[in-house]
């Protein structure tokens, strides 16, 4: 089964057949990244953005993702709010860490597709508490991984893995990931800012199994410094339906799926 990286459910890895007693941090994260997964997925994504006063804004997206030999293709159609309706965004990402993502956006008011710069990984995704980097896969070799302890979280035995970027000026000084033993799901992740202060906490709230594949359906990212939070919910999920390559083209960016 091809590797499939569903951006919005990053850290939602699972299902390894075996693991050794003595694990390294890199092995744990490798198991997370290389978990079995589906060839394609389509779903409706709802993002609920809350600010510190409790005011809520909702973003709705219809998304399609397909694994390709070199990486992954994804297309997203913005459904709500009204002022971004029918905007579409396409991303082709590559396993080769030296190759930048290819990204395009279709703005219905402009009536044309624009290739956009992909060097804005630290930008917020649609105003949420997720950055594009949080939502995408990082190459295993981008960070140094080490197990700092083992502990039980939500009655699950976990490795706690610290990952430190090898890249200078990366937006996080380090991250801590609670990886459930055996399933290799990252059930919690803490992000520390450049001053090594806790910035954000990602939690997995729900998952479901489809076609033998566990899909994380509900996550929340809380920014502990400003009190904002974002909840992502996947609904109407379909996996392994044989999405055609023609879905990830200029034609389909301009024409929302029926």
């Amino acid at each position, binding site marked *: 089964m091809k590797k499939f990286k569903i951006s919005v459910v990053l850290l939602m890895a699972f299902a390894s057949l075996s693991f050794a007693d003595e694990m390294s941090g890199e092995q744990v994260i490798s198991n997370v990244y290389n978990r079995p997964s589906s060839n394609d997925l389509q779903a409706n994504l709802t993002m609920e953005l809350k600010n510190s006063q409790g005011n809520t804004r909702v973003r709705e997206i219809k998304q399609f993702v397909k694994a390709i030999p070199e990486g992954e293709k994804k297309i997203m159609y913005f459904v709500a709010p009204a002022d971004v309706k029918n905007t579409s965004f396409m991303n082709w990402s590559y396993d080769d860490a030296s190759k930048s993502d290819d990204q395009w956006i279709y703005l219905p008011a402009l009536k044309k597709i624009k290739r956009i710069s992909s060097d804005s990984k630290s930008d*917020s995704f*649609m105003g949420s508490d997720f950055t594009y980097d949080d939502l995408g896969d990082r190459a295993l070799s981008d960070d140094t991984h080490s197990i700092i302890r083992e502990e039980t979280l939500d009655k699950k035995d976990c490795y706690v893995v610290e990952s430190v970027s090898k890249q200078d000026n990366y937006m996080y000084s380090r991250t801590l990931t609670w990886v459930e033993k055996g399933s290799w799901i990252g059930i919690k992740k803490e992000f520390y800012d450049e001053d090594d202060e806790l910035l954000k906490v990602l939690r997995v709230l729900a998952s479901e199994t489809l076609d033998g594949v566990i899909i994380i359906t509900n996550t929340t990212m809380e920014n502990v410094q400003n009190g904002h939070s974002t909840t992502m919910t996947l609904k109407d999920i379909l996996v392994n339906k044989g999405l055609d390559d023609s879905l990830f083209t200029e*034609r389909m960016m301009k024409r929302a799926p029926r």
Partner: protein
Amino acid sequence: MRYRFILIIVSLFSALSLFGQNIEIDGYARSYIGVLTNDTHDYSILQNTFDLKFHKGLSKAGFFANPYVYQYPNQNINIDLREAYVDLYFDNMDLRIGKQQIIWGKADGVFITDLVSPKDLSEFLLRDFEEIRTGITSIKADYYFGNNTVECVWIPVFVPTKMPDESSRWSRIPTFLIPTQTDYSMKDIPENTDESEIFFKYSGMTSALDYEVLAGSFYEDDPTIHIEKKVDPVAGTPFLQLTPQHHRLNMIGGSFSTDIKGKVFRGEGAYYTGKVFPAMDSYDIPTLTLDKDYLYYLLGFDFNIGETKMSTQFIQKAILDYESSIVAEEFDNTITFLMSRNCLRETLTAQLFTYIGLNNSDALIRPSLSYDFSDGFEISLGANLFYRNETSVEPDISEMFGYFDTNDMFYTKVKFSF
């Protein structure tokens, strides 16, 4: 006007009944107020807009209609269809028939190969993107193979760019020492198949490169003003007769954009044949015209600095085989600069877009700030500031931006999208 409104509504409801109940309807209401910064404090614009979009998409067909209303105080309301078309979908081909906006090219804010849809320049370049291009009645066929597309467009009837009224503050009127009269008899193009327009485009979208190769045979949207010296047969006084006329052009061109280490490089160019340029006679009056080939191209660069999106473009127009009597300069150079930043969870957007004319050292500077009070409700504040090189005595129509130096304005827009 009332008849037109009724016709639009009846047509829309006919379409709705054909396609059933599941019609998507969205649109916006907007109020737009602009005030000149000069001593008059005149309103540059007082406009209320209601824009509706009707969509229906089935597996094999769809339709779209976009009626809109502009309302100005003490004036008749302006109702029209921005677009109204039917789509037919085949396995590897789409056919779109009706009034539609067709946008080509990779340029931002300039029109090099983007020549299919006419423009609405009644407010110079200040209208929103969606509004500056007008729909054109046409048949568009797209054939797809892999990530490539072949597009053919046939426009049965030429529609010119909408220019400002002569009384508008956006009109560009040449001044002469002797009186002028305008003859519009040559402005209209006969409505028959011989005078129709046709465009072709081949485009591809790959990881390495997006590209377009295109060609067209069409009428130039902006008319050339032919000038003839005449004598009034009654008064016996000389005058200049100005005759606007659209000329047929042939164009080949292309565009590309590519990502290099997270930065986007863009280019677009077109080579025109048969373009007519006014030229000076021996009395320094532009009564002559010369046909010259013409090159128009752009190079652009998009990048990010932190969370700020930046974009810059260099644009050049070059008249080939140039002759000194031609009124226009041999080379006309412009640069644009865009800076945009979102903050407060993408509810606040600050933007600065600038055109700088290098030939005349003039500029249009467009700062703006927009804030989303809630989803779909946006308020914008901005300015359109024209800069003119004050070493010249009087504004000249060749000054693209400086000519409107007295039209500096501040504006606010309140928009609710649904």
